[in-house]
């Protein structure tokens, strides 16, 4: 096999060449890198929240309420004198937990249901009618309906948003399965006596992963916005867990005198969602060149 110049680059391990490879990667996939770095920073911030010059995000200090940002209170204080910087940093934990959990749970569930419906016509006819119906209810409303009936808690928020996202994932997986089923190599697998489970696992599931990964990132971004919307209208995380949505909600009454309270969590939420969206765009471009040209 002939060695082409690009292979030499990969084989070579000394520093200048490697730096060149990184630069090339960044040039080719700028959105993946920018999005990945933004998201990485937010995750690091969430993990190391206690060490980032923060105090207890729930500690009340009524004497120091509604202080504008100063050297002591970097982002100012809220209506109850709580340190907004600490609340915003800790809020990253809630938003990211919701986004990542919903993405994993809904792609997992959607993958399972999609595989079953893609292979079983009787189940397909019934399940897809149900999914069509659920998809005609805007996802925030499904989440609102479920949250109104359960106690405010992080688990319930994750569950409610997951239920709202599963139908779309199911449709995606099902469409991939239906296309693949007609492929010669899948027919060959069946013809040579491979069991259905094994064929699914070896030939179908790996092909659903790239689109699921892309879909998963967009679901994570959407779930974080939905969580913020739910918390903002009082149907999300309880006030004892500061999330970017409920920080903004609790203090929207004083927006006119202290708009910074809404501003800081809003900026962090937007930046995180932006990072995930860029990552998703980049992944889609990298994994599906056919779409990359168009969108």
């Amino acid at each position, binding site marked *: 096999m002939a060695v082409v110049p690009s292979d030499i680059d990969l084989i070579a391990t000394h520093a200048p060449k490697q730096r060149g490879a990184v630069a090339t990667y960044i040039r080719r996939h700028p959105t993946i890198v920018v999005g990945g770095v933004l998201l990485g920073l937010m995750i690091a911030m969430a993990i190391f929240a206690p060490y980032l010059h923060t105090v207890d995000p729930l500690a009340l200090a009524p004497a120091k309420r509604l202080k504008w940002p100063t050297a002591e209170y970097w982002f100012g204080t809220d209506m109850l004198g709580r340190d907004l910087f600490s609340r915003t940093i800790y809020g990253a934990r809630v938003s990211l937990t919701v986004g990542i959990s919903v993405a994993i749970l809904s792609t997992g569930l959607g993958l399972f249901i999609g595989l079953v419906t893609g292979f079983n016509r009787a189940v397909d006819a019934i399940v897809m*009618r149900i999914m069509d119906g659920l998809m*005609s209810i805007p996802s925030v409303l499904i989440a609102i*309906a479920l949250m109104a*009936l359960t106690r405010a808690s992080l688990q319930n928020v994750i569950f409610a948003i997951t239920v709202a996202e599963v139908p779309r994932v199911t449709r995606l997986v099902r469409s991939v399965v239906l296309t693949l089923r007609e492929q010669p190599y899948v027919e060959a697998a069946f013809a040579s006596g491979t069991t259905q489970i094994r064929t699914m696992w070896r030939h179908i599931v790996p092909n659903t992963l790239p689109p699921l990964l892309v879909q998963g990132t967009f679901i994570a971004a959407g779930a974080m*916005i939905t969580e913020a919307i739910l918390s903002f209208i009082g149907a999300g995380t309880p006030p004892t867990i500061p999330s970017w949505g409920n920080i903004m909600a609790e203090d929207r009454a004083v927006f006119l005198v202290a708009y910074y309270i809404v501003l800081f969590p809003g900026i962090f939420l937007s930046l995180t969602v932006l990072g995930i969206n*860029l990552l998703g765009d980049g992944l889609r471009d990298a994994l599906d060149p056919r779409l990359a040209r*168009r969108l």
Partner: protein
Amino acid sequence: MFGYIVRRILATIPVMAVVAVFVFALLHLSPGDPAAIIAGDNATTADIERIRAALGLDQPIYVQFGDWVWRLMHGDLGISIFTNLPVSTLIHQRVGPTVALSISTLVISIIVAIPLGVLAAWKAGTWIDRGVMVFAVFGFSVPVFVLAYILIYVLAIATNLLPVQGYANPADGLRPFLSHLVMPSIALGFVYIALIARITRASMLDVLAQDYIRTAHAKGLSSEKVLLRHALKNAAVPIATIIGIGVALLISGVVVTETVFAIPGLGRLTVDAILRRDYPIIQGVILIFSAAYVLVNLLVDLSYALLDPRIRY
């Protein structure tokens, strides 16, 4: 053609049936006693029993379901627990502002988004194109209420150009009515504009690569004519589709936008109902919003025949 319209209309029946069953089932899917949850933490046993009876939860489930379907068929959405008024009356009172906000958002979004997308596709690869795409990514990332507060600060508090919040009845004059709608419509429409602009660009890029576009250029037509008469016309179907699907975004956003801007519409009704755990209202609003969404997408599907004469059913 006629057969297609009838079939397409009939196809919405199972969809709405699933919505209705879901909305009914919600009360029964919840863990624990729904009557107790709705009543709240400070309720007495008598309160819980009263709510149980009001919601018909003391009946066998098949009786409840039969009742629910029967009443729904007659346009009866139940009685609000908190106000004791029929839900259909409450929805009727609040539907006006929401319709006004939705229509103005829809109009503004389409007027802004389609030219943006066409421009980006026409100038593909230039800084204009990149600018539109960057705007689109930001549009997807900034939540509606964050944008709403930024707009309030910039356009109302700092410059005093528009009223901070509230709603004016169109009967009290067109000017206050419109000036109260501008900011909510921009905030609500932002993500929708991003979505439509992005799809318009993608769809236009596809069409602009076709042979007949080159032919049109070659026979000496002006760029504007090629762009609008030949390209946009052929790119219309995906754009119409996304306008229909995107209405779901609008509906989700309406709930928040009405809260921020203190607009007394269906979204505000929903939020108040959540705080009071007034479940019949939540059920009614979900049904109405979903029906509106299904209806819009039905109209979009039917419009394909107009947009693309090649489509014959």
